[in-house]
């Protein structure tokens, strides 16, 4: 079957395929973390927050929910799961509300009088001490054990327990039998912190698998359900869903395409040949990204492959346009100028994407451009040679009959387009989905579960915080202390439910020195204590350690941040304080935000402070909008470039506009239909619309060619009908995906392709022109 003239190009192709594949697998790492597909802010404060969210402790948290079964089963399961996970090295900590026996941190105990807000002068007066001793007596004689009994001789004023209370988070989940639960008691809640960052998907996957394994061991009845959420889980889910969905969908699409090609051309060889540009395109796309970025993102690969599905059009053009007994190369050269313009205009569309600052999208753009060009080249250079001579395609002439329609349908089409435009302009609300979550590849119910569990855990309001910054740590801590009264007022007026302030754990040096200076002298304290003890039954010399500790505190140097990082407070502080470049950033998470205006007011009033109120949801929206507007202006330039290119190829500006008219009509119709279907448009709909423009121009160019004969016209119709059917089929399959991004691309392209086909057929033929 294969002679020598065919063998050499085939060998070259196989060589290219093997070499590229080998290079890709050996040298180009496939990244799977998600940060690439999240926009990055240009504001330094926002950047710090984003980094915290993506790489900090927050990114390592896995929220675990246990549903189903009885209340008792859920309580038991929560306790056992915690025990089981704590034994494993994958988790730094696992919390479910269980209080461990009190560990008294020697360092914090030593510094208690400098750290506690309660260490005011009145505490050490005879009255203050007598009151404290009354309390201690009550606790000692209470019918239950006092956890701080051992510390009584050192800490009769119970400063240390007060400190522990001061450090409790502002709000905690409700609990049943000491285990965290949702308020309706239907879901037991746990938080696990993994050893590794949330964006490191492989280790997150391991941690996630282990949670599931341990849970199944515990759930012997099989009545309980495990729910997990959090950044790491999202990353794992995204990858899994994208992998399995794109695998399944591309399998179904491939099968569909093969079936269509077999039905149309009735030749296995043709079907195999048609796959070659597609394979070439995918390898070349991956290769180009590998060369330019040094890495390939899994999501780029998954989405890019779907976009490159369109390269199947190129061989279809070649096969369908071929005349009886015509040499394949001859046939190709007849349509090549038109095809070339189509390819280049599509590439211009993706050049728009490739030049954005959003790394995920620019990879996707580069991937598509590399792929499209390689697919076209493969069709141009390789296929005609491999097809050989004496080609005979059995095209059913019935299928190829072009409907000759008059001007009426064209006018109707224009009218429909105008209606669609009008419909879009009359939309009362924005047709854009500008939430940051619109960029997410996650199924909606996962995001919903996450929000639900965060509310149940009484976590701080996601995305609401006050941020302070200063080059000097002492300054920033003082600023935080100055802010405290204002924040307390906000709690009192119920503008917020609570807040978490770093200076609560690490007071400024100034504040610590003030507290130190306020401590009474030895003699003073001794006489005060003696007065306080007159009516008590405590043994006379019991409180010697207390006197000694206060005396020692007067010689203490204030506690520094470095010392705290070795205590249990490290975790808390790492969430609240951050050193980036030359700046310190202090973050104040807010709980239960009711009145954003009041918070804004507070930060404005604190005029000599760097305090700023950040609403990440709003900032995120602003970023998405800004980004979209950036893409829009680029699209403007892209369209201009297309018009120019078309004008040059068609040697007429008017013809260029006429070729573009059906395309614009198809885009308008597609957007109108999407909105009518209730879709909120995202950046990914835009990506797909770029593809629609490319495909549409291709259809429009071919339909508007002035064919030499009736038969040529039929062949064009045949080619474009097969292209449109196969593309629409593939993207309809894609539209069935539960991943919002794939669905967006699939739905938009499927509608756009059908629209382009109809519009081009009705309009372009009326005003036909030919690429010279």
């Amino acid at each position, binding site marked *: 079957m294969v002679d020598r003239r065919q063998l050499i190009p085939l060998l070259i192709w196989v060589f290219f395929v093997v070499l590229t594949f080998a290079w890709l697998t050996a040298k180009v790492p496939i990244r799977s973390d998600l940060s690439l597909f999240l926009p990055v802010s240009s504001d330094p404060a926002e950047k710090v927050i984003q980094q915290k969210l993506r790489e900090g402790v927050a990114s390592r948290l896995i929220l675990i929910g246990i549903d189903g079964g009885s209340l008792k089963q859920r309580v038991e399961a929560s306790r056992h799961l915690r025990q089981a996970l704590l034994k494993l090295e994958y988790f730094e900590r696992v919390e479910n509300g*269980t209080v461990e026996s009190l560990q008294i941190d020697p360092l914090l105990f030593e510094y208690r009088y400098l750290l506690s807000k309660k260490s005011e002068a009145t505490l050490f007066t005879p009255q203050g001490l007598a009151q404290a001793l009354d309390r201690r007596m009550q606790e000692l004689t209470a019918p239950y054990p006092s956890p701080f009994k*051992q510390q009584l001789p050192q800490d009769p004023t119970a400063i240390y327990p007060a400190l522990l209370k001061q450090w409790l988070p502002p709000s905690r989940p409700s609990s049943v039998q000491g285990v965290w639960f949702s308020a309706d008691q239907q879901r037991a809640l746990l938080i696990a912190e993994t050893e590794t960052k949330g964006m490191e998907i492989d280790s997150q996957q391991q941690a996630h698998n282990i949670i599931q394994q341990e849970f199944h061991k515990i759930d012997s009845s099989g009545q309980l359900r495990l729910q997990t959420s959090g950044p790491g889980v999202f990353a794992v889910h995204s990858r899994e869903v994208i992998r399995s969905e794109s695998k399944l969908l591309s399998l179904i699409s491939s099968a569909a395409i093969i079936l269509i090609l077999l039905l149309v051309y009735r030749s296995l060889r043709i079907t195999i040949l048609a796959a070659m540009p597609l394979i070439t395109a995918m390898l070349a796309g991956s290769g180009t990204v590998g060369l330019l970025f040094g890495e390939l993102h899994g999501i780029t690969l998954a989405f890019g492959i779907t976009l490159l599905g369109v390269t199947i059009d190129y061989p279809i053009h070649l096969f369908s346009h071929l005349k009886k007994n015509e040499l394949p190369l001859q046939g190709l050269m007849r349509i090549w100028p038109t095809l070339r313009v189509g390819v280049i205009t599509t590439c211009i569309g993706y050049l728009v994407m490739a030049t954005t600052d959003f790394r995920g999208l620019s990879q996707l753009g580069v991937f598509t451009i590399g792929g499209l060009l390689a697919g076209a080249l493969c069709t141009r250079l390789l296929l005609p040679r491999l097809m050989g001579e004496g080609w005979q395609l059995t095209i059913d002439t019935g299928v190829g009959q072009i409907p000759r329609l008059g001007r009426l349908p064209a006018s109707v089409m224009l009218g429909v387009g105008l209606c669609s435009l009008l419909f879009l302009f009359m939309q009362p609300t924005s047709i854009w989905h500008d939430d940051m979550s619109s960029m997410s590849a996650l199924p909606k119910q996962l995001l919903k579960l996450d929000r639900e569990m965060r509310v149940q855990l009484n976590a701080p309001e996601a995305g609401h915080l006050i941020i302070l910054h200063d080059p000097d740590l002492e300054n920033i801590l003082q600023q935080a202390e100055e802010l405290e009264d204002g924040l307390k007022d906000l709690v009192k007026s119920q503008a917020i439910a609570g807040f978490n302030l770093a200076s609560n754990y690490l007071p400024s040096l100034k504040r610590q020195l003030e507290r130190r200076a306020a401590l009474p002298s030895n003699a003073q304290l001794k006489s005060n204590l003696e007065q306080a003890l007159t009516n008590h039954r*405590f043994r*006379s010399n019991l409180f010697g350690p207390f006197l000694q500790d206060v005396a020692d505190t007067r010689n203490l140097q204030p506690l520094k941040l470095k010392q705290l990082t070795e205590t249990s407070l490290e975790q808390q502080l790492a969430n609240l304080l951050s050193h980036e470049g030359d700046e310190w950033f202090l973050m104040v998470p807010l709980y239960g935000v009711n009145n954003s205006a009041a918070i804004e007011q507070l930060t404005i009033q604190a005029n000599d402070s760097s305090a700023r109120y950040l609403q990440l949801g709003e900032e995120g929206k602003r970023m998405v909008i800004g980004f979209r507007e950036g893409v829009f202006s680029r699209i403007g330039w892209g369209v201009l470039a297309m018009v120019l290119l078309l004008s040059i190829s068609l040697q007429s500006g008017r013809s260029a506009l006429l070729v573009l008219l059906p395309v614009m009509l198809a885009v308008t119709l597609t957007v109108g239909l999407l909105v009518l279907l209730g879709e909120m448009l995202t950046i990914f709909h835009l990506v797909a619309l770029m593809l629609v423009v490319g495909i549409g121009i291709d259809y429009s160019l071919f339909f508007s060619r002035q064919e030499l004969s009736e038969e040529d016209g039929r062949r064009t119709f045949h080619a474009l009908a097969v292209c449109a059917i196969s593309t629409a089929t593939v993207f309809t399959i894609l539209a069935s995906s539960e991943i919002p991004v794939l669905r967006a691309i699939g739905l938009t392209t499927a509608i756009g392709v059908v629209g382009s086909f109809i519009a081009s057929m009705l309009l372009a033929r009326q005003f036909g022109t030919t690429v010279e």
Partner: protein
Amino acid sequence: MRSLPYSPFALFLLLTVAVQASAEEWNRMELMMLLATPQGSEQHYTETKELAFLETSVVSQGRLVFTPPDQLLKQVEKPDVSRYEITGDTMTISHPGEANQVVNIDTHPLLRTFIDTLRAILAGDLKSLEHHYSLKLTGTRSAWQLHLSPLDSQLATLVESLIINGQGKQINQMITQEQGGDRTTLTLHDNGG
């Protein structure tokens, strides 16, 4: 810091082993059935706390009311009035002239164990006591002693042992021996007496 009651304790153990043989037919099952109080109980008590931190021991008196399955009220009447009421997971503490304090008994792990123990003893629920303690029953039906030593190491750092003395279905005395030598003796008086 620990006082060492080990040798008397060992002696006590030897004694109980010796007595056990004679009490063959008197077993835990029987005690459990005796103690089970479906309607609950209300008794007067006298509590003596001997604490190392204090010069003298503290004696208080009041009422102890148990309503199955999980309600427990300790009303202190002398020397000062105060009230501790436990329902399910919460304990409400009232001192006259002060706002009520509501505490989740899980805020401190030993608090729950302690309260669960007390409830289990009053309910005659030896099964759940066996989760936390190793039990040793000695004596006869008319004068028995139940000795509990903590299994949980956390609890053991605080409580050395619990000793319950009783006759028939009546609990007479509960002695909590803490590590470090502190001791609380709770004597229950028959309601009629």
